């Protein structure tokens, strides 16, 4: 028999270890009742604790957690109901199941009062042992199960914490290895902590106390700082902004800075940030932009120069052909055939030079953004054909044309390409063979592939690429007319549209020129 003051558990063999067993509180002022209860419940796997009064019960509740409380309703001083009320008031025993034991025949009000006070069940004396044991067992079970759940929850929580820690340290070491500086500072910029990568980026000795550093020192232009802070206040964050800062030794660097404003549970504000040294990247970018500008400038200058040069070059040529023709007109009667022929050479040369200059100018102007529009290639072909009419008629060309698509591009350039290629197809015809020229287009991945084929003299295999070079001529000046720029112009024009040009040819049989232009869709 235990004294009421001791909460000493009853040790039972083959049961749960002492201390781990569920406890049940028996409250009754009559010892004989307690003994009886003890007898009924003694066989179960639990520790019985006795209290002789409500007051004692409450005291015991301070130090112990019970699976269920068996409460006698009729007790002197503080009856069961009062005790139950007080038990329920305590947070620790708010939900502890209470079984009222009453001798009285239960009247409804009596019972309902009990339930309203938080009783879970009633047992009527005389106690039926099996019933009491069964009821208590249910609560025991519940108690054990909820304790198990709690244990599991704790274990999971602990594991989660462990994982979080591991992740954090992995992240930290990763950021350090990748030279990503991480820091926290006050809104005023006083550094609170910073990782080793941060220190490295700014050349700060790792032994230096971070609190001695204010981030404002690192900015080259304070204006940058205030702008970023304003954005931080406005949107709550700053993302990957490139700023010029300097290291502790004042050497300048470019950094990529990201910051967020955070508020901790106490309401204090902090700035958490990440910083990376992007000096190399940034300087390359700046150099690239400068180069691009230089290129644009130089291109503009070149165009200007080309225009002026061609202009000034045309002047003397005009004089040569004008005066030669004047000479012929005025002194033709005293110049013999040879003389006239000589003059003819002079005039021809001048004319050739003029064409050459015009072609060079055209070639040099290609590639300057001109206006793009929808170009009906059939129309352009019509015009090219019209321009070449005399040639076509003279050579008695058999011309086959298929329907051509409409593409987006520069109509002038497209027209030039068509005219050049058509002209070549006829120009380089075979003696004694009626020239035949075919033009068609088919849809390919890159857009449209145009094909202009002829049955002319063909091009040797080793020249198929070179003919597109400026001034490259396969034949002597006397054999075939031309400046040698025509195909170079074609290539540049096609390239300007993002297309390509090539030729397939067999000497003595003919050539087919293929060029691609982007489709409109």
């Amino acid at each position, binding site marked *: 028999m235990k004294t009421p003051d001791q909460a000493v558990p009853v040790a039972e063999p083959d049961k749960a270890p002492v201390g781990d067993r569920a406890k049940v509180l028996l409250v009754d002022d009559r010892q004989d009742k307690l003994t009886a209860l003890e007898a009924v419940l003694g066989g179960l796997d639990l520790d019985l604790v006795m209290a002789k009064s409500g007051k004692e019960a409450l005291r015991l509740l301070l130090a112990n957690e019970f699976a269920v409380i068996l409460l006698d309703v009729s007790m002197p001083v503080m009856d069961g109901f009062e005790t139950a009320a007080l038990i329920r008031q305590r947070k620790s025993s708010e939900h502890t199941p209470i079984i009222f034991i009453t001798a009285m025949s239960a009247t409804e009000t009596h019972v309902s009062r009990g339930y309203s006070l938080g009783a879970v069940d009633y047992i009527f004396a005389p106690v039926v042992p099996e019933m009491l044991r069964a009821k208590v067992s249910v609560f025991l079970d519940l108690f054990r199960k909820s304790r198990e759940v709690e244990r599991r929850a704790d274990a999971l929580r602990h594991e989660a914490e462990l994982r979080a820690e591991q992740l954090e340290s992995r992240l930290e070491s990763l950021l350090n290895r990748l030279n990503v500086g991480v820091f926290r500072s006050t809104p005023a910029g006083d550094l609170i902590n910073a990782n080793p990568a941060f220190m490295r980026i700014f050349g700060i000795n790792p032994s230096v106390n971070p609190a001695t550093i204010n981030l404002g020192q690192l900015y080259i232009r304070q204006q940058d700082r205030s702008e970023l802070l304003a954005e931080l206040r406005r949107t709550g964050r700053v993302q990957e902004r490139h700023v010029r800062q300097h290291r502790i030794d004042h050497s300048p660097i470019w950094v990529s800075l990201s910051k967020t404003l955070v508020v901790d549970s106490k309401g204090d504000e902090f700035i958490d940030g990440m910083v990376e040294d992007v000096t190399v990247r940034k300087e390359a970018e700046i150099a690239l932009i400068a180069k691009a500008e230089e290129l644009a400038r130089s291109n503009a200058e070149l165009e200007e120069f080309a225009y002026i040069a061609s*202009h000034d070059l*045309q*002047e003397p*040529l*005009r*004089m040569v*052909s*004008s*005066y030669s*023709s*004047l000479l*012929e*007109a005025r002194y033709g009667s005293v110049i013999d055939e040879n003389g006239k022929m000589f003059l003819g050479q002079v*005039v021809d040369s*001048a004319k050739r030079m*003029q064409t050459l200059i015009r072609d060079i100018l055209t070639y040099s102007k290609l590639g300057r953004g001109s206006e793009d529009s929808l170009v009906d290639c059939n129309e352009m072909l019509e015009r090219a054909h019209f321009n070449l009419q005399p040639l076509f008629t003279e050579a008695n060309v058999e011309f086959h044309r298929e329907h051509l698509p409409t593409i987006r591009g520069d109509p002038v350039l497209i027209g030039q390409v068509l005219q050049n290629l058509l002209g070549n197809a006829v120009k380089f015809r075979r003696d004694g063979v009626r020239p035949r020229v075919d033009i068609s287009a088919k849809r390919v991945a890159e857009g449209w592939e145009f094909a202009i084929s002829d049955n002319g003299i063909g091009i040797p295999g080793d020249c198929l690429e070179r003919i597109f070079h400026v001034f490259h001529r396969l034949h002597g000046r006397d054999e075939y007319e031309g400046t040698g720029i025509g195909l170079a112009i074609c290539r540049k024009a096609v390239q300007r549209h993002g297309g390509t040009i090539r030729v397939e040819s067999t000497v003595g049989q003919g050539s087919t020129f293929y060029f691609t232009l982007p489709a409109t869709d």
Partner: protein
Amino acid sequence: MPTSEPFILMVEDNRGDALLFQEALRERGSSVRLVVARSVEEGTQILTQMAADGEFPCLILVDLHIPRQDGRAFLILLGSDDRFARIPTIMLSSSQREFDREECLRLGADSFQVKPSDWLSYLALVDSFKSYWAPSV
């Protein structure tokens, strides 16, 4: 209106062009004097001097690309002076750039001609002047 012999003022710094035009005039039997100014300055001087004597050109030819002062500037000068504003003014250029033509017409030139590159075209040019701009040529 001019009472004495008509003359054509040509503002052209290229001697070769001036000479060719002269020859073309002679070929077409024109008795008109060709006065050549090598710069806009000179041209303005000549105009003012002749005007003081009551003489005005029946035709003014201006090279667009005359150095030092652009041919365009001369056009503006002419247009602003009542005495000269109504004299037919033709711009000459070896350039075919479209905007040149439109700009000159906008500035008050009466026509824009591309300089010829052979003798026959020069003759044709003179013919066109005779028939259209200045019958007295």
